[in-house]
């Protein structure tokens, strides 16, 4: 089995690339601006030059930002592609959103409310839909977010590569209980997961 | 202020207003195109429930009334006051016939229990509900425009009578005419999209 690349890595790299470039540009613009205001203040520079433009310069600062923008687009897009291409062996869990809770349905028909338990190291595909209005499934730790639209099936996938507890939130405004529409994601070892799946399924 | 004598500018303003009308109906055609893509079969089968004869008659009515309005401008330009008023009156009457047909058509559908939220419609396949939703929205909005257009034409008839619209001064008639033609124009697209769809 080939190793699965965690899309979180690529998304974070895209963040770093774009924000880094942006900070640099912001600093350059601001510093230049402040320097000009200081250097060419009316006290120091009483007579302005008459410069109305320079097509070479304008061409440069049209083309260069275009290239930068294109590179950012590509970085962003390829990280998105990682979020969309689900590995074949993914564990599929049905997710139904409703005002104001999350229902997760496992392959063995087991249902949980506001608690998603997944095994470590196995990619998980969430099939998302909604019962009433539009909600948004948002797991910040895995950089995934997808709207739960009534009548439509959307999906998202993630690679739980570390055990622990993460939070799930609703990202699309859905009414009074919007902010309380949270759930817990527990990443456990495969053995724990299997045990959990069996025992709790028997309970209900 | 000088602008009051600039008929080209005033007509430009009217055209700009027509663009907003085009985009208003355009939003509905955006929806139509998307839903046609999603429910092509249902659209085709439901379209056959509409009365093609009535739709065709209404198309002819609007085309003729458009012609009458265009001819009325020619009449005004030639100082044929009576003729212009007669032509416009004809157009208004045709507008009434159009509305009467629409009333019959809607009334018949309501009689059959097909209207938004009706039990008869709620049980049908999704595409059919959407088709009728669009049908009622677009034709209803269009009928509303017909009514407004008729009011404008009636104003024009009165203005011709008072001598406020005449050979050298027919901007109002031109602009009202433009509105009427636009309503016709929109129908030219509604007709095949709803009545002739196959």
């Amino acid at each position, binding site marked *: 089995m080939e190793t699965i690349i965690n899309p979180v890595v690529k998304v974070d790299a895209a963040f770093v690339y774009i924000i880094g470039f942006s900070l640099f540009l912001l600093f350059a613009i601001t510093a230049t601006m402040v320097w000009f205001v200081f250097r060419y203040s009316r006290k120091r520079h009483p007579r302005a030059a008459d410069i109305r433009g320079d097509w070479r310069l304008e061409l440069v600062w049209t083309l260069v930002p275009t290239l930068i923008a294109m590179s950012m687009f590509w970085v962003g897009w390829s990280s998105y592609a990682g979020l969309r291409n689900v590995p074949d062996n993914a564990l599929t869990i049905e997710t139904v959103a409703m005002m104001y809770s999350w229902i997760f349905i496992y392959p063995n028909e087991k249902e949980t409310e506001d608690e998603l338990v997944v095994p470590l190291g196995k990619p998980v595909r969430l099939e998302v839909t909604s019962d009433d209005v539009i909600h948004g499934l948002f797991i910040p730790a895995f950089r995934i977010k997808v709207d739960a639209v009534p*009548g439509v099936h959307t999906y998202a996938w993630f690679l739980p590569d570390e055990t622990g507890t993460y939070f799930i939130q609703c990202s699309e405004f859905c009414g009074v209980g919007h902010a309380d529409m949270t759930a817990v994601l527990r990443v456990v070892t495969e053995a724990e997961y299997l045990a959990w799946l069996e025992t709790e399924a028997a309970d209900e | 202020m000088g602008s009051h004598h600039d008929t080209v500018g005033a007509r430009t303003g009217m055209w700009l207003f027509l663009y907003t009308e085009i985009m208003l109906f355009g939003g509905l055609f955006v929806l139509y195109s998307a839903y046609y893509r999603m429910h092509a079969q249902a659209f085709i089968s439901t379209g056959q429930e509409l009365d093609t004869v009535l739709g065709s008659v209404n198309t002819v009515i609007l085309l003729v009334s458009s012609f009458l309005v265009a001819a009325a401008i020619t009449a005004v330009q030639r100082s044929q006051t009576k003729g212009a008023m007669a032509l416009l009156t004809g157009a208004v009457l045709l507008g009434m016939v159009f509305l009467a047909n629409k009333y019959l058509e809607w009334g018949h559908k309501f009689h059959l229990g097909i209207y938004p939220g009706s039990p008869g419609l709620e049980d049908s396949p999704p595409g059919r509900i959407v088709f009728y939703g669009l049908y009622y929205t677009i034709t209803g909005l269009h009928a509303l425009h017909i009514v407004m257009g008729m009011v404008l034409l009636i104003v024009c008839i009165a203005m011709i009578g008072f001598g406020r619209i005449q050979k050298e001064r027919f901007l109002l008639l031109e602009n009202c005419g433009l509105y009427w033609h636009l309503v016709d124009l929109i129908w030219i697209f509604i007709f095949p999209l709803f009545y002739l769809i196959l």
Partner: protein
Amino acid sequence: MIPRPWAVSTERNRAIPMGETMSNAVTSFYDTPFPARFRGVWSWLFTLDHKRIALLYLGAATFWFIIAVVLGFLVRMELMTPGRTIMGAETYNAAFTLHGVIMIFLFVIPAMPAIFGNFLLPIQIGTDDVFFPKLNLLSWYLYMLGGALAIVSLFADGPPDTGWTFYVPFSVSTQTNVGLTLTAAFILGLSSMLTGLNFITTVHRMRVPGMGWLQIPLFTWSLYATAWVQLLATPVLSITLLLVVFERVFGTGLFDPARGGDPVLYQHLFWMYSHPAVYIMILPGMGVISEIIPVFSRKSIFGYKAIVGSSIGIATAGSLVWAHHMFTSGMSDVAVFVFSFLTFIVAVPSAIKVFSWVSTMYKGSILMTPPLFFALCFIYLFSVGGLTGLVLGAAGPNIQVHDTHFVVAHFHFVMFGGTGFSFFAGLHFWWPKMFGRMYHFKRAYLSAILIVTGFMLHYVPMFILGLQGMPRRYYDYLEQFAPGNFFAGLGALIMVPGLFLMVINLMVSLKQPVDAPADPWGGTTLEWSVPSPPPLHNFIERPRPGKYPYDFSRVRTP
């Protein structure tokens, strides 16, 4: 006694025989009602004078701005501590919805075109009024009617709680008074459309002879580009809102998935208007900055044609990127690809503008004044807003930060840091022209510094909150988001007093006698060649536009 560092004389001023005190010699539009038969308050309510209508808008928009600021302030105070702080969840939802609706439809969209546009566009192109003065007044009444409905919905039982986006199916199923707010937005859209219609016709038909397309001042150019967007995009919103009303009243089922409808199509229609609307909001602001920077640098704008071109480019390309609000909506991946790509394309013309403004200052002769200070703040804040827009435009990162506080911070940097600050800049720039009075400089600077400081403290933590994953429109939040929200609240506590100081400073200036000269800053566009405040018909003699609107060679410090 006010310091008068701005007092300059230009050759053109001297060419007009009345000189610096001409504002006293010419009867201003304040003393000349139009139509002349109306007196007192009627001379305002029935006025056909574009300048009076502009001031009517200014009064109303200021009122709405204050209401919306207070609502936003309350939202932030509620979020300052976790759990219930000052209001319940229903009230909170209504507060942020009305904050958004009022800010967007009653302030940000109409403010710049309706106030500065109405006042200055005819003067900048050398004419005496807009093409359709009656329509102009009608626009104002529609604006007031829409505003009145918004007020009613504030107090009607169940103020709307959908957010300003009115997403279906929630907006169809909620029991609150959404219909009223939708109607208000519909009417306000009509008002905005008619203003756009008026401006396009005016620019085409009423430019003073001798003013070709490349002699039009950049502010008017930006209004012209905006007007087309207003005209062509607004009807799409109108029909969309109407459809939601139909959906609520008749149950047409057009967006109901149970009946074959598709809620995602609503989002398409909504953003087909509402994304271009972002450019309706920001383009005139860019125009204001393009006027201010050259005047205080006493130097021609760098790349006039590039700025004109980028205004048109932004208006065009900006109309085709709407779906970048929908990357998580379940839209096709192809659409994500295309709309992400187009979003990056639209970043380029904005970048061109920023570079041109900064270059304008190169080798200029820069005089610091409150308008310039606000304009420089604009460039900084707008750059932050624009650059964080790149993060949002990139498909992968967008998924993480969409619908989080990152978005809230981003669009406030653009809408408030951008449109808001350019509005403040324009207000300080044209205040002496509009009212004939100069305001207190030090208080203006102080207010600007308070606003910017508060602004940064208010919104920068939201970027971090968003990256950490705090969604927007949350009444309550997880423990780890507490510090960021607390700092944001602190920022609001600094920013809001700054805003009030600015408003009060301007208001106080109205008590002084009319004393501003026609051209206090040394501007070159036509509005500086007429008295402050201008007479009813704007120009005493027929204006003679120069070959180039930003020729500062004749402007000199004495």
